[in-house]
């Protein structure tokens, strides 16, 4: 009886250690940065990861997969507390007038309070649609903070680049519009 109890206790202890090790491995594997921004920095052009988020205007949800591979996309990660986002979103709004018929402009309002975000859009005259990524999980998949982060996806659904400098915007817009 004592031997059975001891063997059971040992088996439980081993199972616990194996479980904790498995948890550690899983955590390390998920911590490894394999986001879109890092893939771009490594010279790759990954397929744009899908997301399914509520629309900021509160009318239903939006899936990136619904436009990915059909139309080029500009993806703008922003928040109402982010001061530099104002400048970039206004530039995108201006570009929307020139490329809006060929390119899909989508904002991802991230780590933000949605009513403040809607007010911010009205205040700055931003008309392209946005989705709400309050937890920032989608932002993390694309590269994480800091924002603004603006990505360009061609017609085949591949991410071709991220805006790093002012002159990148017209260059990438021409590239994806022609794809």
């Amino acid at each position, binding site marked *: 009886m004592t031997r059975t109890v001891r063997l059971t206790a040992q088996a439980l202890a081993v199972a616990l250690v194996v479980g904790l090790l498995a948890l550690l491995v899983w955590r390390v594997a998920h911590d490894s940065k394999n986001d879109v921004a890092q893939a771009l920095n490594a010279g790759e052009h990954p397929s744009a990861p899908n997301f399914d988020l509520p629309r900021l205007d509160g009318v239903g949800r939006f899936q990136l997969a619904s436009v990915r591979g059909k139309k080029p996309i500009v993806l703008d990660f922003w*928040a109402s507390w982010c001061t530099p986002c104002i400048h970039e979103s206004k530039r995108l709004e201006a570009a929307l007038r020139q490329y809006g018929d060929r390119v899909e402009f989508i904002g991802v309002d991230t780590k933000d*309070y*949605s009513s*403040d975000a809607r007010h911010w859009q009205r205040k700055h005259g931003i008309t392209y649609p946005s989705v709400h990524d*309050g937890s920032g*999980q989608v932002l993390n998949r694309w590269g994480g903070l800091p924002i603004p982060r603006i990505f360009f996806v061609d017609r085949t659904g591949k991410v071709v680049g991220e805006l790093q400098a002012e002159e990148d915007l017209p260059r990438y817009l021409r590239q994806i519009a022609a794809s």
Partner: protein
Amino acid sequence: MLVLVAALITVPVALASERHPSLAELEGEVMCPVCGTTLDQSSSPAAQQIKRVIARRIAAGDTKSEIENRLVAEYGEAILAAPRHKGFGLLAWWLPVAGILAAAAALGIGAWRWSRRGEPEAQEPVLDPSLERRLDDELARWET
């Protein structure tokens, strides 16, 4: 008795805090979504925004739970510095307690078994058969 006194003191305080939360109190219980600290430790624009939201909701008469629910709906569960006392969050509160109790029980059982192993068991002294025979002879001779 002590538990009753503690309950009499803490329950009204908790109820008052639930009905009329203060900004300072919530600042210590809500995380800044971009800095990894609670709001009271941060002056980032994102933290300032949430402080303003909380102040607005307090002014509107929201309870603490209503404010927390609103923030969780906007930012996810990670916006709270500590897991909530319901649903899956209960696991985070009770698992460590269960672990401590299990460890204490294991230690107690181990100590009890170890202390019993240390006690010398009462045993009949074993004599060499030749010595035993000699002792019997001597005793028989003494008795006669």
